[in-house]
């Protein structure tokens, strides 16, 4: 696969029939590459928290990247982050909706049973790790697992607000833009999410 640097930069969205100025296009390309490279791992982890399945999370992140690059690359850079997360959250919601429909349909078919947690067991997961686990890292991993489980138990909007504000570090206005709601709603969702999480995790943490 060719590296991104070797791509023809002329792909950046340009609405006019005449070709875009080359310098501007190059600038867009570099900026977008930097933005996506910066955001992709956090976006993946957030999608994984919501969807559990890493393949699904990867698909949703890739779709969000594609839509941002195709439709919104010409927008000001400051708008990319909320736009990207709005696309991502929509993708997550669509996938969850499809899953629930599929689950309902599969329940009618005899002899078919979905994996209860939608987590297929990978044999490689059962192989012992050669490197000794560092206790501190192990504890952090366990704490993160507990946090993920508690986040999944939250209503979707509260989870979105918490992840965008706390994990991604968006401000209230950016979170409102990403969630497509008012700033007041963001504050409410976030406050409730923190309250619920603290109640659930207070004893463990």
């Amino acid at each position, binding site marked *: *696969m060719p590296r991104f640097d070797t791509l023809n930069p002329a792909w950046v969205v340009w609405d006019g029939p005449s070709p875009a100025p080359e310098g501007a296009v190059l600038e867009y390309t570099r900026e977008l590459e930097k933005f996506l490279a910066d955001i992709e791992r956090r976006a993946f*982890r957030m999608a994984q928290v919501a969807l559990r399945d890493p393949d699904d999370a990867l698909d949703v992140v890739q779709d969000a990247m594609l839509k941002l690059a195709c439709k919104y690359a010409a927008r000001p850079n400051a708008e990319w982050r909320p736009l990207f997360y709005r696309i991502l959250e929509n993708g997550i919601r669509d996938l969850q909706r499809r899953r629930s429909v599929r689950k309902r349909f599969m329940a009618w078919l005899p002899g078919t049973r979905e994996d209860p947690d939608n987590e297929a067991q990978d044999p490689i997961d059962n192989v012992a790790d050669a490197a000794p686990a560092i206790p501190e890292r192990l504890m952090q991993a366990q704490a993160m697992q507990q946090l993920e489980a508690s986040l999944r138990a939250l209503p979707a909007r509260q989870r979105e607000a918490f992840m965008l504000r706390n994990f991604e570090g968006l401000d209230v206005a950016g979170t409102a833009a990403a969630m497509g709601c008012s700033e007041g709603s963001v504050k409410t969702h976030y406050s409730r999410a923190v309250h619920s999480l603290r109640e659930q995790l207070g004893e463990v943490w």
Partner: protein
Amino acid sequence: MNEQARDSFEERSHALFQGSVDSLDFALRSRLTQARSAALDAAAAASRRPWFLRKFSWTPAAGVTAAAVLGAALWFGPLGHPNVTAADAPSLEDLEIVASSDEGSGDTMDMLQNDIAFYDWANNAANPGPAA
């Protein structure tokens, strides 16, 4: 709960999340890079299309056109079979008269026999032969 407790909780959550991001394995990072490149490749392919194809999708228009054609075909009748009206339909009554060979209704044959001289003249006029 005081403000300090809230801050520490948020900070811990953020730190844990950031730790989990940093500890993503190499295979997953590689897949993410590939996904990014694939997305950008697809965007590049889309941008190479002419601007009028890029602006909007033709799929809805094609669907509407196909539906209109189908509707017209169903409305105006099946293709390849022109409309058959009552006036165009072969009249069984006429056929019966022509084919009739009943004793009391041999009008057609009688008419032919009575005018045989006329038909003979008409044939000669249409196909004039060499003068005898």
